[in-house]
């Protein structure tokens, strides 16, 4: 079974620049844990601190209560899969995968057995004697994955392993990675900037920005209940509308600045969201309902639309001039022509509400499951 990774108050500095300042997190045994964030947010830096390619300027890194700060990388027993595969070009597939086992002075016969077994798992056993130059990108990444797993590491690290593959292979490989990770139950830390990839493979996601963890949660929670404006904008797409909290007849409502008369009732706002408080409503495109003009909602004009088969994306303009995006499912038959005046209603149980600076969620997080 996989190991626990505990990071406490990690600090990373390059010269006078502090990249990470006091970051803590815990990865559970066997968990598929993803570090997600825009480029330069420190996710790869953190990963390289775990494996030991980056020095650690502060804090403690533990694997199963063993502090690894000062253990050399080659003694840490951590497997790693790199963005550019990093397959040894002068060794055959077999020798690539056997490399780590040879370093561990494992008997030849056992090496052969273990390599052949793992090659079957990643489904490239027929390519055993090929040289890497004769392999496709996807096959090379399978070699890299086999090579990292065959040493039975306590922890597996993956640094954007799919970003060099084309779109179709990426989906295929990410399913393979997920399947193999579950089969072996290795604690895995996965770095990516691709939110769809993160949502698809992870048990939990840590969203990072500027070296700070914004939220750690299950994929669905990160998407549905983002902790702040950054997360709600980075994962998926959100329209941000200014609004005000209203108490009307014992019921908490939201009054949108564009149309103060439209006041959908809110049942999940925090206690401290007082009457008259200014807030920022984050509404995903699919959380809008496009209604006929005159129905309760925010008035808007259709600017343009894109038909995508399963859904249709509308680009609309509010009376304030703000542009928003809305999605309508294909069960609506007709495409609304450009220039049509419509009314945009929101789905109150789904939308998120933040403080005006976007730093805090004002919605109570219903604890599902």
């Amino acid at each position: 079974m996989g190991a626990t990774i505990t990071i406490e108050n990690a600090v990373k500095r390059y010269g006078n620049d502090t990249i990470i300042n006091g970051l803590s997190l815990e990865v559970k045994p066997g968990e598929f844990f993803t570090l997600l964030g825009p480029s330069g947010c420190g996710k790869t830096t953190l990963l390289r601190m775990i494996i030991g390619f980056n020095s650690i300027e502060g804090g403690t890194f533990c694997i199963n209560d063993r502090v690894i700060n000062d253990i050399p990388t080659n003694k840490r027993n951590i497997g790693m899969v790199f963005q550019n595969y990093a397959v040894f070009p002068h060794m055959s597939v077999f020798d690539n995968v056997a490399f780590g086992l040879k370093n561990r002075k494992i008997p030849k016969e056992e090496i052969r057995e273990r390599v052949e077994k793992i090659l079957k798992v990643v489904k490239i056993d027929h390519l055993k004697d090929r040289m890497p130059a004769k392999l496709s990108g996807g096959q090379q990444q399978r070699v890299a994955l086999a090579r990292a797993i065959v040493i039975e590491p306590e922890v597996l690290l993956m640094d954007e392993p799919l970003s060099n593959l084309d779109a179709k292979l990426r989906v295929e490989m990410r399913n393979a990675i997920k399947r193999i990770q579950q089969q072996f139950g290795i604690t895995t830390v996965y770095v990516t900037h691709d939110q769809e990839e993160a949502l698809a493979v992870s048990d939990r996601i840590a969203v990072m920005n500027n070296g700070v963890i914004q939220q750690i949660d299950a994929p669905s929670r990160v998407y549905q209940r983002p902790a702040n404006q950054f997360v709600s904008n980075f994962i998926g797409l959100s329209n941000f509308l200014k609004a005000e909290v209203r108490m009307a007849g014992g019921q908490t409502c939201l009054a949108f600045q564009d149309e103060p008369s439209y006041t959908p009732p809110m049942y999940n706002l925090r206690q401290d969201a007082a009457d008259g408080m200014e807030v920022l409503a984050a509404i995903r495109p699919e959380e809008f309902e496009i209604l006929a003009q005159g129905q309760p909602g925010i008035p808007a004009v259709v600017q343009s639309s894109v038909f995508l088969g399963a859904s249709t994306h509308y680009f609309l303009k509010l009376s304030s001039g703000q542009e928003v995006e809305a999605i309508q499912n294909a069960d609506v038959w007709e495409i609304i022509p450009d220039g049509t005046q419509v009314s945009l209603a929101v789905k109150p149980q789904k939308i998120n509400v933040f403080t005006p600076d976007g730093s805090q969620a004002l919605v109570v997080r219903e604890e599902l499951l």
Partner: protein
Amino acid sequence: MRYAGEKRFNIWTVLTLILLALFLLFVVYPIGMLLTKSLFTGGELDLSYFVKFFTKKYYWSTLVNSFKVTVASTAVAVLIGLPMAYLLRSIKIPFSGLLNILIVISYLSPPFIGAYSWIQLLGRNGFITRIINAVFHVELEGIYGFAGIVLVFSLQSFPLIYMYVSGALKNLDNSLNEAAESLGCNAFQRVTKVIFPLVMPSLLAGMLLVFMRVFSDFGTPMIIGEGYKTFPVMLYTQFMGEVGTNDGFAATMCIIVIIIALMFFFLQKFLGRRFTYSMTALKPMESRQATGWRKVAAYAVVYLITFVAALPQLTVIVTSFIGTINGSLFTGEFTLDNYRNIFAKGNTTAITNTYLFGLEAIVVVVICGILISYLSVRRRSPLTSVLDVLTMFPYIIPGSVLGISLLCAFNGPPFMLGGTVLILIVSLSIRRMPYTIRSSTAIIGQISPSIEEAAISLGASQVKTFLQITIPMMLPGVLSGAVMSWITLISELSSSVILYTSGTMTLTVAIYSEVIRSNFGNAAAYSTILTLTSILSLLIFFKVSGSKDLSV
């Protein structure tokens, strides 16, 4: 960069310090000795040597002569090399692969062999001179002095221009040409407005290399210059001459030439930084089939120039099989006497020395080259940067200066190395190492660090990773530089001629002294052995690496 758990003082620091110490001892210390000798007499600052040089026309005129020869040769080399590169890239010419090899070989053979071959052809008693004199009833004196030097140098150096421009043209994407055409440029405008400006940086780089090479060459003006003395010749005679040698004055001349060489080196660096375009061609320019008079003209120019360039090598090989009277006058009869001479005398030391020293030096070059390039790319630190600069120094300064500086430093206590094999190998290695360092540095820059990190994450130690992963991956690049180092090693003259003693004579020194003694038959036989070794090395390299390009 330091990895986790790595000590500040590790094997890489130790290696850096050892290499640094070697270069301090064999490069910095000798140059320091030169400086002391030229600037101080009896412990006091004394600029009289500099005053002497710049006030006596006999001395400073050699500097002027050198500049004249260098500018003229560089210009002619460009005039030949530029059209050659363009023609061979743009027009389909049969046997272009062979032409390419012939051009490269004419560049790689030592210039002074060219000088002596041209004397065989166009000298006072030269083959061609005699024909002309007989046919036209004239009394041509043959080609010596300024014209002779320029002839030899330009034919020897245009291949460098050719290789640089040809490389740039290869990286020029044809779509640039097509874009210009679609925007209304005719063929002539395309060459002047698109191709030429893009090739310009490479041309400049090539020109400056030619300039430095010609400026510092000593053998050619010595042999074909007769009364026309250039700076390196003056330097050699001041240091090695039989009468009135003056170490202090020679040291001063060395310092002057080092300053000039450094100026050109920095000029090249400066221009190189300002005018570089990074280009990689997805679809390189294709050579097309020419028709009509263009075809005839192109073929004629390319074949003629290649023939003339290869002529010295051909002459040497042919004359090596022709008998002589007293070694100097060729009889015209085919015989193996020359080879019998050089082998029968039992005096094959020059040949064995060349291979032996060459092999020993190339081992040093490859080991140091790999280590230095690895340290300066992967273990960058102030120390490795210093090391990087120091290794380039012997490449910039003329070989005779390097030889003189080594002799100055090691011909007396505390280091008695004068006349030893060691000092010759040291000079050969540090002088020819830059080729290997540069090509190794280039290839290590292309190897992703994550491949080495992968090995470490799989449990390999850093030394093991270096030996099992980094070095095997570097080998192709190391090899292409090492073959350059090797071929230039065995044809090195300017420093060997200063450092050799009778026991450590090499082929080039043997050829040189046979030529000076007018033993042309023996010289031709020695040269043929050297030339064939170079050709063979080159062909083996092309075969092994599968490429047709050499890193120059």
